[in-house]
């Protein structure tokens, strides 16, 4: 704790160039997995807060995304975690709250700025207590290379059939890899693949809630069909996609070698700086023209208070600020693609981000099917979905076998409430 504080102070003083002598400032440390956002916190968010709240210093201290959950749990158990905890959505944070690592924030001034849906990812099952301030959600869809589409005379596909027709044309032309996605890191296949196109087949919230209730099973047609579609993607991925990692996919697309990128909106800011061509986005294609479209608008990030923080008052001041429209506006514009969950409408300037968020008007929103309740047991449904989605695309498992494995795993511990 002391060491991180000292390190944090050194970091803060060197980067912010604060010349102030050591008077009794409170230093708040934020734990986060968003190491990509370090610059934004240090240059925009923290100065904006510190200007208004003299006496409170904030240090943003991120760790690697894949290690965050394990590292955070260990730090919390050892009592060395920071004052503010960036919250993963749903069960991981709920578990932290149940183990009294996160403080109850239900009465926090500023909480009224969020709708129940926005808070759902960080609220107990009975809806009584909220333990994290919602920060942002991410939307899934496809980002495409507009220049490539113009060059090949392609129009944005709206149905599954059109989508594969477009892929076929790009493949026939041969100049571009039709779609940039790999299965090496497993989660791309699940998150950018299955959870991206899936909601159109299982009808978003309707299917997700039915699954939780036990009325539907993962072996039902609505849940197997997206796997069948995913299996067809194989022919349109780049050479050696089995060993293609997530950064490989990002680079293939931003270097202009691939035409379509199955995306999450969090890519927008990175792509804006990397890509030298015009980009557009389209929502996951529906099965038949005229079908209602569903999008995955997933509550992704919140921030909570370490229950053992010695600086709880200062931390609450900070959290109230995070709940304010001011924070929402800075955050949403600094990080286009992380859409504010604040009830106050935020004006965004990025065209790609505007395109993504516009789908909220015409499509129905849902969250990722595996995140709430269904990943509480062993085997973990989310992790299994990673493995099976990659298997389906690699051709290791057929869609039916993959679905059966997932359902069997779920059945082994999950008993739907009657």
């Amino acid at each position, binding site marked *: 704790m002391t060491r991180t504080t000292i390190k944090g102070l050194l970091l803060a003083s060197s980067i912010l160039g604060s010349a102030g002598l050591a008077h009794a400032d409170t230093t708040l440390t934020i734990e986060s997995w968003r190491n990509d956002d370090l610059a934004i916190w240090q240059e925009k968010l923290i100065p904006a807060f510190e200007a208004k709240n003299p006496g409170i210093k904030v240090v943003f201290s991120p760790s690697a995304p894949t290690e965050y959950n394990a590292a955070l*749990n260990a730090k919390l158990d050892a009592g060395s975690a920071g004052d503010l905890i960036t919250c993963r959505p749903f069960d991981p944070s709920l578990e932290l709250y149940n183990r009294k690592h996160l403080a109850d924030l239900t009465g926090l001034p500023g909480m009224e700025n969020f709708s129940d849906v926005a808070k759902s990812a960080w609220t107990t099952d009975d809806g009584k207590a909220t333990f994290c301030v919602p920060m942002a959600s991410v939307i899934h869809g496809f980002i495409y290379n507009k220049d490539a589409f113009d060059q090949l005379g392609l129009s944005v596909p709206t149905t599954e059939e059109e989508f594969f027709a477009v892929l076929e044309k790009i493949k026939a032309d041969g100049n571009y890899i039709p779609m940039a996605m790999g299965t090496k890191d497993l989660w791309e296949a699940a998150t950018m693949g299955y959870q991206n196109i899936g909601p159109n087949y299982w009808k978003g919230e309707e299917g997700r809630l039915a699954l939780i209730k036990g009325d539907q099973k993962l072996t039902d047609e609505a849940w197997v069909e997206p796997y069948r579609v995913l299996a067809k993607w194989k022919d349109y991925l780049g050479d050696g996609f089995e060993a293609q990692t997530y950064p*490989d996919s990002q680079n293939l697309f931003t270097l202009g070698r691939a035409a379509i990128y199955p995306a999450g909106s969090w890519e927008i800011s990175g792509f804006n700086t990397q890509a030298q061509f015009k980009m557009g986005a389209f929502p996951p294609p529906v099965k038949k023209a005229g079908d209602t479209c569903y999008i995955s608008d997933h509550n992704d990030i919140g921030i909570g208070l370490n229950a053992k923080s010695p600086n709880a008052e200062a931390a609450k001041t900070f959290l109230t600020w995070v709940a304010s429209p001011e924070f929402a506006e800075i955050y949403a514009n600094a990080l286009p693609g992380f859409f504010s969950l604040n009830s106050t409408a935020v004006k965004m300037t990025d065209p790609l981000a505007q395109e993504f968020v516009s789908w909220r008007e015409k499509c129905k929103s849902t969250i990722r099917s595996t995140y709430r309740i269904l*990943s509480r047991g062993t085997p973990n449904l989310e992790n299994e979905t*990673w493995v099976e989605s990659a298997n389906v695309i*690699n051709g290791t498992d057929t869609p039916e076998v993959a679905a059966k494995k997932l359902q069997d795993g779920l059945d082994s511990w999950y008993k739907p409430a009657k």
Partner: protein
Amino acid sequence: MKPRETTMDVSELKRPRRWHILIFLLPALIVYTAVMILPLIETLRQSFYNTVDGQYAFVGLGNFKVLFGDPRWAADFWNALRNNFFFFLIHMAVQNPIGVALAAMLSIPRLRFSAFYRTAIFLPTLLSFVIVGFIWKLILSPIWGVAPYLMDLVGLKWLFAPWLGRPDSALIAVSLISVWQYIGIPMMLIYAALLNIPDEVIEAAELDGVTGWSQFWKIKLPLILPAIGIVSILTFVGNFNAFDLIYTVQGALAGPDKSTDILGTLLYRTFFGFQLQLGDRSMGATIAAIMFLIILAGVSLYLFVIQRRMRRYQF
């Protein structure tokens, strides 16, 4: 550990007691106990406990019953153990013979630049596994990798495949990366053993007309067998404790389709959790306890059965 016991025996036999031996051993003993033995005992203890109805309680062999009895736990465990044995077999079949061959070549007196080769071959062992993993991931990358390019130059591009991404080749590829990294250790140990063979023995052999290959098989190999035994046991312990390289190259889920999952990665996922999966300390400790038993069994087999039968030669 063995020499320590023998010194203690000697000190008890003679009078006056040589207390300074104990004093000199103490720092190492304290450090070793604090960082190795106590955590080991604590892990073993934890494998007999679990949370029952929210209470931390003694469950006897309950955790082990779940690990071997529950079809999913058992499938994961046996898969990891099978992969681990395969990982070990590749090391034994590739790393150690090549290590012996390299050592034999290095010990040829006429060889030029032998110091350079020795250093160059030993160097990867000194590199961090993170660097090794990252370099090889890049080399083997089908998109930017130098491997497909080099193979193309010699007209072998058709042989290239995204090895790290295929369930049937990923484990072999990762094992070979590990072999590449650690080949220096058997080479050095066996090289030292070869240098220890007295010249008189070799000269006597030559007088008897035993030269070249038959000299290696009949004279040198029997003399370096104890060194090969040590190398094998080091490989065994290292392989069954392996985790780092697989984690850096294939991630904690040890994909694709858990084909590179070994005991170390299974333990990590279980103990610390991964992504939405929360850590389960009791089951993690149970897997760690099994790993300890496997390694203990392997080392005991070597110490009590193989090493005793091995013939040693005194010069």
